[in-house]
């Protein structure tokens, strides 16, 4: 359970990016945060793990007040929040495995990480996660040899190996093509379902947000102007969030997409221990 109360951020330039945001995120809920560029979406999730220091308000994750922690406790709190980035944010000259294992840095000491001597349990988990996203054969490839979609899947593994209680996802699809975008969003949604994770997903693609999130929050100029189910996004609401525009195309398309996407999503509910046919495993990994 994440509770945000009166979260405010004023940048040193004087811009008020967030104007006292209140937000509750129950366990296991996947929430999309939409809004125009500059509305403060990135600032919200960076204030939660304090990559950006909020100027006011509190963030409480499962009882712990993140905003008042000292640096050592903040490190500990950050381990419980996995973050996925817009341009993958992998360290390109490190291998896929090192990038995934870097998600464990908060749990081990410097010398251990410097010598790359990670506990066997971490390595096992890294291979499991890479297999889950269909990249276990790439473990020793350098991250810059991967395609965009593959890199984002490595980024997802890095976030998940932290065993987080919350996923903070910043524009995961902004640098991906439409098809890969859907695969990545589907993967994030499925993984959240499997692990009962709650997630805040910043996304500027309204259609994707409606497809994959159970709740939509609309942000405009640092204020929440919509909070409700995806079906509630009417032309009037979109105008409130983004401004005047002809929304009929966006809304109509969405209903078609939901029909199309519904089929594979229901099919993916298979017991974990049954042997899946090859194509199904690939599809789960977002390969098809």
């Amino acid at each position, binding site marked *: 359970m994440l509770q945000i109360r009166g979260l405010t951020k004023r940048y040193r330039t004087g811009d008020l990016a967030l104007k006292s945001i209140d937000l509750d995120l129950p366990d296991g809920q996947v929430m999309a945060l939409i809004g125009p560029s500059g509305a403060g979406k990135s600032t919200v999730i960076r204030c939660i793990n304090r*990559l950006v220091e909020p100027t006011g308000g509190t963030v409480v994750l499962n009882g712990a007040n993140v905003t008042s922690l000292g640096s050592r406790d903040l490190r500990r709190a950050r381990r419980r929040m996995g*973050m996925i980035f817009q341009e993958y*944010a992998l*360290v390109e000259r490190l291998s896929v495995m090192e990038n995934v294992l870097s998600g464990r840095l908060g749990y081990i000491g410097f010398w251990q990480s*410097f010598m790359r001597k990670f506990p066997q349990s971490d390595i096992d988990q890294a291979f499991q996660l890479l297999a889950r996203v269909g990249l276990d054969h790439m473990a020793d490839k350098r991250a810059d040899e991967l395609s965009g979609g593959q890199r984002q899947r490595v980024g997802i593994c890095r976030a998940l190996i932290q065993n987080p209680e919350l996923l903070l996802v910043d524009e995961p699809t902004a640098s991906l093509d439409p098809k890969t975008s859907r695969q990545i969003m589907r993967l994030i949604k499925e993984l959240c379902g499997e692990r009962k994770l709650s997630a805040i997903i910043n996304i500027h693609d309204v259609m994707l947000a409606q497809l994959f999130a159970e709740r939509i929050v609309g942000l405009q100029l640092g204020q929440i102007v919509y909070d409700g189910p995806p079906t509630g996004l009417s032309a009037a609401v979109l105008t409130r969030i983004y401004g005047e525009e002809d929304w009929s195309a966006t809304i109509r398309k969405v209903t078609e997409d939901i029909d199309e996407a519904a089929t594979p999503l229901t099919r993916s509910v298979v017991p974990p221990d049954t042997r899946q046919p090859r194509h199904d495993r690939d599809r789960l990994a977002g390969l098809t």
Partner: protein
Amino acid sequence: MTAVSDAPRSWIKPPLIKRGWLRWSLGLGVVIYLALALGSMDVNWTRVWEGLPRGARFFAAFFPPDFTGRWHDISDGMLESLYMTVASTVIGIAISIPVGLGAAKNMAPRFVYYFCRAILALSRSFQEIILAIFFVKLFGFGPFAGVVTLSFATIGFYGKLLAEDIEDTDPLPLEAVRATGAGWLQWINYGVQPQVMPRMIGLALYRLDINFRESAVVGIVGAGGIGATLDTAFNRYEFDSAAAILLIIIAIVMLVEYSSSYVRRWVQ
């Protein structure tokens, strides 16, 4: 909407300095200053002419180079130079890593940044010869003064380039590593180091090359190495031995040059 005229419109590139009088007077000023400067250089062409055959005799004395006559002195000096080179490069780089980290704006708090920048500026403001004269006065003749000189010069060179490379790193992976809950050293090791490493290996080899050449120079003011041997050879008018020393220096510099370009290609 305004009507688009069909008549051809002329276009010239807008001048760098808009005001005409300023542009012309600046140009004229530069020409006058250059003429005055050249005029003040009193070139005595007869002396240049007389010097030419002297120079030719001087060069002729270099041949044939004599490797054997003073081989013992030459090999001693050369080995001393190589020791000095390797020691000063390693020491200098070891010190410049923390200094360079501190001198990168995106790593260090403001006062650390200014402190480390001051160290770098101090190290870079003196030429090796001046440093060598100072350290020879401080520690006496010999290779120790040379090692200190070259290490100190290495800090300014390597620390500054390291700091600049760190400032040029992609901030997004740094943010991502920080978001995992990594500590500061882990953050440096996983986020910064992989991004700067290839260039830094190349620069370390380049600095090794520079330090070898400088070790020959600082020897002339008494800081040990092959430079001292070279100076002695000149003072005794043993130009054939001096020529041998110069040829060996050229050979070693070329060797380091080729191997470093090979290593740089390999680390990329």
